[in-house]
């Protein structure tokens, strides 16, 4: 399936394969409509950033990609979200398996109150890996991928809560990677981190996109500009503009986007 976005400047570009295809997505919390008619394709092995003011629906949109919104009472979803061509909202879809393929990293690092090793081993063990050597291998692989191995390799039995905030966030990324997902969803992964930790996570995102499709929600527009290939701007639940990041930040097509990214908003 080819990734193409209908750009506001009036032509289509083929940009590789689609990981997600979102069609006419509407989402309601009770009577409150939070997402309105979202049509969006997300390219495989690229970083896509979702930006927009608080309450615009970007985190909700992110959460539709691994059905995290299902957990919220009173939520109603219309439209379709295709992952590799298959609708993840079909009743027969195994949500646990879906979330294994589509991992998530949250705003605040949320390690389990367990050792570093156990944090990473938790997912694979849950999915049936019992062999200690295999688990150890997965732990090392994940920590290396998350650029944390060298810092913690001698202290794997230490409590994860003793790590710094930046290390905890990379631990959470390692934990997400441990179950070998295809996609990583990140909901403001750096908002609780200092600039140095932020830079490390950004470097990590850059390295990870070779193997993963990454979707990041961020309030930090410079971050979106730095790390993503494509950026979607949402406002009041609608997708206002979706374009190459470079284009969106230098010459957006829509006035709403311009007002938002230049800080003229409100």
């Amino acid at each position: 399936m080819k990734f193409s976005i209908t750009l506001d400047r009036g032509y289509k570009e083929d940009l590789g394969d689609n990981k997600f295809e979102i069609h006419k997505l509407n989402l309601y919390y009770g009577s409150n409509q939070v997402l309105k008619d979202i049509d969006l394709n997300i390219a495989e092995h690229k970083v896509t950033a979702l930006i927009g003011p608080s309450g615009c629906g970007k985190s909700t949109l992110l959460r539709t990609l691994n059905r995290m919104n299902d957990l919220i009472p009173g939520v109603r979803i219309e439209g379709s979200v295709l992952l590799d061509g298959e609708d993840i909202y079909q009743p027969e879809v195994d949500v646990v398996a879906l979330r294994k393929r589509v991992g998530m990293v949250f705003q605040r690092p949320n390690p389990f109150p367990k050792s570093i090793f156990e944090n990473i081993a938790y997912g694979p063990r849950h999915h049936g890996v019992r062999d200690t050597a295999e688990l150890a291998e997965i732990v090392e692989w994940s920590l290396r991928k998350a650029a944390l191995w060298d810092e913690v390799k001698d202290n794997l039995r230490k409590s994860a809560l003793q790590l710094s905030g930046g290390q905890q966030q990379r631990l959470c990324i390692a934990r997400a990677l441990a179950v070998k997902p295809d996609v990583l969803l990140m909901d403001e992964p750096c908002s609780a981190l200092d600039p140095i930790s932020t830079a490390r996570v950004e470097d990590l995102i850059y390295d990870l996109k070779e193997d993963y499709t990454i979707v990041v929600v961020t309030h930090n527009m410079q971050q979106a500009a730095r790390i993503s290939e494509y950026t979607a701007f949402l406002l009041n639940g609608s997708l206002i503009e979706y374009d190459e990041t470079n284009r969106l930040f230098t010459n957006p097509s829509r006035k709403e986007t311009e007002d938002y990214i230049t800080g003229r908003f409100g």
Partner: protein
Amino acid sequence: MARKSYCEQLTKLKEDVLKMGTMVEEAICLAVKSLKERDDELAQQVIDGDDLIDDFTVKIEDCCITLLALQQPMARDLRVITTAIKIITDLERMADLAVDIAKVTLQISGQPLIKPLIDIPRMMEIAQKMTRISLDAYVKEDPEMVQCLIDYDHEVDALYDQVFRELSLLMVDDPHTIKQAAQLLLVARFLERIADHATNVGESTYYMVKGERTELNL
């Protein structure tokens, strides 16, 4: 409107670029006047005044760098600032060319002109008009205004060719004229360059407003 102080600084930046443009326009005008009227004092005034323009260039550039560093501008704001940096570079070069013309006035001081100056002042008028149009377009943020610069630039180029031919013939006829003719030829060349810089300012303005490129120096 949000970001009040930032918006004020952007407005101030544009005003400063315009102010610098006015100074440069005047320098060009006075330089050619000094040549036409054989006014050494006026020529010296242009040469001395260049320091002010240079200082102003640095001041505006510093302001742009500060805005980039502190405000992380995006979209049109980003283009306004990068365009300002480009435009002041062109304007600064134009002022230097005005100084070069003024220096010719001093170099041929006291010598009778080998021919009456007709085409050179005409080139100056057009180059000056082009400078004004490009700056007006910049201030009014009107990308359509700059389109006429193409034709004006052709006119200046044609006049330059004419001056070149005329002075070449003079030099062939009478080798005594060579020294001054070469100087006057340089003046024509300087004016042709000034016109090119004016088209650059026009192109930068077009990019600033539309976010797309245009070619005016055809």
